[in-house]
């Protein structure tokens, strides 16, 4: 369970998150919607510990463990995974090498042994197959020269390999055509599990047709201003975000 209580954070001295509280129980998928500049991406970076995003108050914990005092890699080892809106290219590091390094680093941080090379490859082959990823692509440098859709599929592939307990999807639908959106959504849905929380950050309701949320929250002006069931997303699609506009 992800528990965020009265979180406040700033970027470059400017407050962006202003007292945000949210709980995502294990097994549930919550969507966060909101207008541009509401603080959606900032929330994902604050939860993952990116440099330059300074927490000035409040708390955030995953399964009872404080996240905010940990560095990004330690948070990942605790099960936090962010699917980036714009996944980075890692020149010179084959995708498989990168993911195996990440997996073993996480296992080491948790006091577990390394995964053997044959076991890793077997799992990678099976996951790649289910996401329709050409296995040869995994031997190429991660995301270098990949299309937008391929990069997002690689994010889902990494998720499936690393088995996080908190999944944050930041604008996962951006840059995807309808076929890629379907594949990615199926990949995410396959990861739904009773011991996993998911936070789906999105502008548009479109993604939520494919990844059905249990709850929908509206983030505006750095706070959750409304929460509801899946029908809230449909209403937002109809009326827009104007009623949440924060006076400048």
């Amino acid at each position: 369970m992800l528990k965020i209580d009265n979180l406040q954070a700033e970027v470059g001295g400017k407050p962006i998150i202003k007292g945000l509280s949210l709980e995502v129980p294990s097994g549930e998928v919550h969507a966060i919607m909101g207008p541009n500049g509401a603080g959606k991406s900032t929330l994902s970076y604050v939860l993952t510990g990116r440099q330059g995003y300074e927490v000035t108050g409040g708390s955030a914990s995953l399964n009872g463990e404080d996240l905010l005092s940990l560095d990004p890699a330690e948070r990942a080892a605790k099960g936090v995974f962010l699917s980036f809106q714009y996944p980075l290219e890692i020149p010179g590091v084959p995708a498989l090498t990168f993911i195996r390094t990440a997996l073993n680093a996480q296992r080491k941080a948790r006091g577990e042994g390394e995964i053997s090379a044959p076991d890793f490859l077997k799992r990678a082959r099976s996951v790649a197959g289910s996401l329709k990823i050409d296995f040869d692509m995994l031997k190429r440098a991660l995301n270098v020269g990949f299309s937008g859709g391929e990069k997002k599929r690689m994010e889902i592939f990494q998720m499936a390999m690393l088995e996080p307990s908190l999944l944050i999807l930041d604008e996962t639908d951006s840059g995807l055509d309808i076929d890629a959106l379907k594949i990615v959504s199926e990949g995410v849905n396959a990861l739904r599990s009773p011991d996993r929380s998911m936070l789906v950050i999105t502008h548009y309701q479109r993604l939520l047709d494919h990844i059905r949320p249990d709850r929908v929250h509206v983030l505006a002006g750095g706070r959750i201003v409304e929460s509801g069931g899946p029908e809230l997303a449909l209403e937002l699609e109809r009326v827009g975000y104007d009623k949440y506009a924060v006076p400048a």
Partner: protein
Amino acid sequence: MSLLSAIRTGDVTELPSRRDEDWRWSDLRGLVRTMPGLSSGFDGEIPAGRFAGLVDEDHVLVNGGELTLTIGAGQSRTLGLRLISRGEGRHSTRVSINLEAGAQLALLETQDSDGASLVQNTLTIEMAVGAKLERVLLVDDHAMAINVGQTTVSLAPGADYGQSVLTSGARRQRLETHVSHPGGEAQLRLDGAYLLAGKAHSDQTTVVTHTGLDGATRQLTKGVARDQARAVFQGRIVVTEGADRTDARMAHHALLLSDQAELDSKPELEIYADDVACAHGNTVGAMDEDALFYACQRGIPESLARAMLAEAFIGEVLDRIVHEGAREAALAWASERLSVAS
């Protein structure tokens, strides 16, 4: 003035100084106050080198010496060359390698030192028609050592020379390569990689002179400097009159991993011929912080992520080593250097 004459005479005023434009970033005169004594002989044990097991035969020079190697026409060899400095004296080595027509050689060379020695290594390579040589040089110098290497390569038409110079620097280190390129079907690949930490200095200086029609040169140097390290890259390509249709590409890319690391770079093209394609690219940058965060978010601790990204950066140069065993040894060297430094 040269280091060689200073080593011979023991006179510090003979050392190259910053007054010489080519030495301005690798000044020796201002660094060395008194010349060390001549190195003595060494009869202690020499441990196995980094290319152990890969060569037909090892040639070892400890604290100076001379050596001439000839590879007969049509022969193919893999030879080890180890230039070893023990102690804190001054000395020089002189090695000549001749490849007769169609001869092939993989030269796996190491240079190492264990103290504040002052060394010049001179290597002369003559390649006849159709000869082929790949030289992989791995330099592991002591932090207080001063090492100057001068390599002169003369290619005949149809010869093929490939070189990869890999180093972690020294107190002052200058690794020079001069190539005389006759054009025609001769091939030249000149690569370098440096991984510098602490107060290490390393200068890779190359001069390629194209003198005939249709010559091609491919040059790639990449390096990483952290702490207060200083890297120098000077690459000069000269295309003389009549060396038309020369195609030469030179690239140098550096990563500076601290505010105090320094890079001095001088790519030069001197072209006196027509219809030539010459290009140089020269970049310097810091580590991509976004890529670093991405790796950390996946659970890779920052120090490991930095080493991984730096290794990948250098990897482009190491991957060009043709000799498989040497390439693996080079990758192991880079990995070791980066994990020590991180």
